[in-house]
């Protein structure tokens, strides 16, 4: 059982890492989601693999499962969800602003990040400071 679970977590991580290294934002988001799944499983199983053991001390229960990883994993899931939602929103905004969904900065109007950046910056930090929308 341990081997099987360890292997599946490893597989999820491998897929996640592969996807995170892809150049487009969609696959990166998918990859980060997979990594989050993998790590949630890892935390959850950090409390030991067990069956039919309640996390609370109920009358008649013989053992007690470690409740802490369950609390940790809940927090991790919520935070991971929030972060992913923000990333998706930011990816959409970047697509709107630069017209490219590449995360490596390539292919933005055929120019690199630096050359592109100074242009925008002048516009941004002008006296009125009104950002272009």
């Amino acid at each position, binding site marked *: 059982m341990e081997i099987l679970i360890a292997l599946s977590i490893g597989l999820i991580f491998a897929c996640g890492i592969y996807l995170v290294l892809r150049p487009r934002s969609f696959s990166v988001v998918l990859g980060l989601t997979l990594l989050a799944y993998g790590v949630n499983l890892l935390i959850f199983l950090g409390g030991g693999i067990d069956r039919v053991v309640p996390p609370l001390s109920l009358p008649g229960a013989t053992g007690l499962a470690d409740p802490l990883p369950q609390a940790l994993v809940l927090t991790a899931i919520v*935070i991971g969800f929030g972060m992913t939602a923000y990333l998706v929103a930011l990816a959409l905004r970047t697509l709107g602003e630069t017209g490219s969904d590449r995360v490596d900065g390539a292919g933005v109007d055929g120019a690199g990040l630096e050359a592109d950046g100074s242009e925008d910056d002048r516009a941004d930090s002008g006296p009125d*400071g009104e*950002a272009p929308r």
Partner: protein
Amino acid sequence: MSHLPILPILIPFVAAALLLLLGRTAAPFHRTVAMGAMLLGAASTLALASEAGTGAISVYALGNWRAPFGIVLVVDRLAATMAMLVYAIAIPALLMATGGTDRLGRHFHALFLLQVAGLSGAFLTGDLFNLFVFFEILLLASYALLVHGGGAQRAQSGMAYVILNLVGSTLFLVAVAFIYGTLGTLNMADIAIVLPNVPAGDLALVRTAFAILAAVFLLKAAVLPMAFWLPHVYSAATPAVGALFAIMTKVGIVSLLRLSVIGFGTAKATQGLLLPWLPVLALATIALGTVGVFAAKRLATIAANLVLISSGTLLFAVAFADGTATAALLYYLPHTTLATGGLFLLSGLLAERRGELGDRLVRGPSVGNRAMIGGAFAVLAVGLAALPPLSGFLGKLMLLQGAGSGAWKTIWWGTLLLSGLGVTLVLSRSASLLFWQPETPFPSRPFGFGPGLALVLLVVVGPALTIGAAPVAGWARAASEQLHARDPYVSAVLGDGPDTERERRP
């Protein structure tokens, strides 16, 4: 139990929630609430520091759950210093933002307050998972603050920054899972007790877990293989946000310092985990930062690369983890944070007064308000280049004497002095480009109350730290001794009673 330790976190949190609830109200109202919360929070950190100054370590058990089962906030001298520093950089940054950049997008003040809450929490907590949560709070706020103001470059560098930090958070969780799975605890003081008695079968796993954790802290601190994001990101942010970000790298550095001193001790599982590769990476980061300073095309990029150099410098001292090095580090850290923050603010004020040229380092008419901005630049530059007589020089001198041993000493002196020379060259060249030009200067513009005060605050820090060098260095030494003594920390958190009974895994 006094509720003082939670106030630096709670005050900005409540104020942020209030601002979010009230939504679209007039900007002066938001500014007043935010600044009021900042001042209250700063007062609470001063109270904490005066308490910690007696040598006492106060422990705040959240929900009154005893450590190691509950989460604790621990205020020793180091934590109090860092909490004070958070407010010391955040107040000028907020003042700068009231100059107008806070109106570029919605919710600036709420996000700013959340970031301050996350930063204070990260320095005060004594629990690894709670540290993760505060990291996420400060990161999520920083994601939004970074893209505040819009623009393609901010969105683009924001993407890279968010993705990188999400991967970092995932690794943090992996480390936490392994540490909990093997040690059965996430409390820093408890780790110090459990770590020396790790069964032989778990040694490799524990070591891996802490190595991953160290890597996460080094990503936040921007150390060489993971440093390339920082110049782009920091120089893309608005100046006020850049100044606040100057302290973010320090979260990683101080967390690593605390973990390596309190947690690791001399345990076999983590013996020599940071040596010899951390000093090498730290020196390489200094070199990268110096090259980056030379290559910078904007003043904000110079400031961002100076953050890299200061990260490398501080981490070299962390790597050796002995008392004198830590004391020097704690003297140098406030100076370098506030001075780089000041340079970010200055780059913003400069950009407002050079019209089309912004803060780019190109020949053109010199900047308006030359006396004030030039004077501020001179003071900051002397501090940043570590020239005598200001606090940068004193801090670097202490680091040169205190950190490294044996063969490291030569390389350390060489790297630090050469990097200082490079920074001096670049800053004086920038000064002549920006201030000493024959053409008619750009028209002067009045300083707003906020930005002017912010600049003055960050500029007087250098001279103030120099005049008060003896008490500040004494405080740093006391903080370092308290940290390295370890036992007071552990017994303050866990109590002196017999070891807590706990279940052992089969």
